């Protein structure tokens, strides 16, 4: 059944996409800024995985942790030192600031890593398993599983920990949260760090399946955006659902239109969705 093959492909892609979008959605929802650095964060995470594997022999599934920590720390510093200064200003100001930072980061990565595409080629690949007539590449399936576990962890962190509740409180009502004694600036920085950590982890997972170059940052960013709107801004389960839908669209769209129109197709779906349901599929307040 070729149909089930496409279904499983879409599912596997979707998990990775959900992971790309979750952090982006969180930052957008809580800080109401669009982090144009997100694409470059993902790419840097993938490079960390690449060099960890080729130089130190650390498996990308393990370097998910280091990528997450490094990018989380970077996000924390960037938010605390730079973006917090203008976070209350208009969208244009914050957006153009993150764009400026993106240019710097992208340029630095181009100089450091060159524009060549690189991919982690695993020596001890888990191989492919065949169930019925469906082929499932196990490495990809494993990375999707880890992606969903990470999203679950993020969701639980927002639900159960005190810092998570603080983040949600700031999202609901900044002023009230301030009056309740929450350090809003620090909460912003932690939120941004969580977004960065998710991006870095996603980058590590991606490095097994996709070739990576500094040039692929904008594409990841565009996808994260579309997924985020599909699922509803700021909602972590929404990002997971949006990611799955996006994966399916890309997988099935490839049959009918060819894979080169993946982004166009999902964008058209997005516009149609905006016309009927402007807040996305799971676009409710809260997490």
């Amino acid at each position, binding site marked *: 059944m070729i149909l089930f093959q496409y279904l499983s492909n879409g599912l596997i892609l979707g998990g990775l996409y959900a992971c790309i979008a979750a952090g982006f959605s969180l930052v*957008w929802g809580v800080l*109401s*800024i*669009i982090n144009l650095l997100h694409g470059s964060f993902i790419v840097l995470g993938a490079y960390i995985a690449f060099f960890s594997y080729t130089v130190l022999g650390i498996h990308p599934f393990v370097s998910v942790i280091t990528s997450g920590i490094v990018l989380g720390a970077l996000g924390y510093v960037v938010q605390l030192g*730079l973006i917090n*200064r*203008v976070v209350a200003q*208009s*969208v*244009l*100001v914050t*957006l*153009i*600031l993150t*764009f*400026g*930072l*993106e*240019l*710097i*980061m*992208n*340029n*630095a990565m181009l*100089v450091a890593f060159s524009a060549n595409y690189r991919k982690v080629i695993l020596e001890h690949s888990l191989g492919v398993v065949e169930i019925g007539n469906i082929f499932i590449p196990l490495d990809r399936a494993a990375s999707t599983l880890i992606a969903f576990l990470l999203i679950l962890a993020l969701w639980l962190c927002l639900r159960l920990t005190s810092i998570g509740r603080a983040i949600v409180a700031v999202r609901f009502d900044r002023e009230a949260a301030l009056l309740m004694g929450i350090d809003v600036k620090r909460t912003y920085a932690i939120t941004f760090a969580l977004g960065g950590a998710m991006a870095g982890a996603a980058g590590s997972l991606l490095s097994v399946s996709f070739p990576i170059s500094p040039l692929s940052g*904008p*594409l990841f960013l*565009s996808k994260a*955006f*579309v997924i985020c*709107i599909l699922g509803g*801004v700021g909602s972590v389960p929404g990002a997971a659902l949006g990611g799955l839908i996006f994966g399916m669209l890309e997988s099935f769209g490839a049959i009918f239109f*060819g894979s*080169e*129109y993946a*982004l*166009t197709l999902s*964008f058209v779906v997005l*516009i149609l969705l*905006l*016309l009927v349901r*402007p807040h996305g599929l799971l676009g409710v307040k809260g997490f």
Partner: protein
Amino acid sequence: MTRLQLSLVLVATAILLAMPLVGGNYVLRLATIMLMYATLAMAWNFIGGFAGYPSFGLAAFFGLGAYAGGVVQSTGVSIALAWLAAVAVGTLFALVLGFILLRLRGSAFAIATLVVTEVLREVTNGWTGLTGGGMGLNLPFFGWSPSALSAFFFYAMLALTAVTFVTTFIVAHNRLGFGLTCIRQNEDAANIVGIDTTRYKIYAFTLSGGFAAATGGIYASWIGYIEPGDVYDVLFSIKPIVMVLLGGMGTVFGPIFGAVAFLVLDEVVWRSFLELNTGILGLLIVILILFLPAGLASFDVRSLWRRAVTP
């Protein structure tokens, strides 16, 4: 317009009109690029400066105009017709897109316009039969001498810049400009006092798209070869924004001053750092946002002087 501004405009026009007679090809090329960016900055100013809607999609219209003009011109019709086609396609696309996207506010609108550029690039790349795909599109060469060509395209760009400037001036002193400024300050309040905000925003977006497409059309004929990665470059969206931020948002003269200042910087400083070009642009943006919120006007010469002389 004050008398100072009027005389400034007249002097600038006189210098520009005489330029092909005195300047060499290099100077003309530089001046044409300057005019092009001044036009793009003014085009962005309609939606981004007056209405305060952060459009990141100028490159989409620029590229669309370039390809519409280029494709029409390759069929062998006159160049004026090709440019008209560029304007028509760009304006129509902006109208339809504005109708859909202007339901989004703030950040969602901004990034949606960014994605539109990616989508158009993808479509142009894929539609090989019409656009030549990734191979690019060669435009017919019309056998003039290099100096005649550069003078011709200089005057064409100058005419477009003049039209854009006059339009900006009219809009600024008209209901539309007033309404757009209200939208920038407080959209809900503007709606309540009876401004048809959606219609005004669509007008601004359409003006922005039309002029950007016209610029793209002239650019394509001037350069003679276009490819998707080149004309849909996101820097065509970003540089005009930086120029307007440098010069002053929602003003008549700001975009032009900003464009000139930016390109002078470009020519003097960045030529020596080819590899770090975009990084330095990023640094400029960060400095501009964090330390010069009013653009170049933040350098108040008189107050600096006062601070310098008072002990």
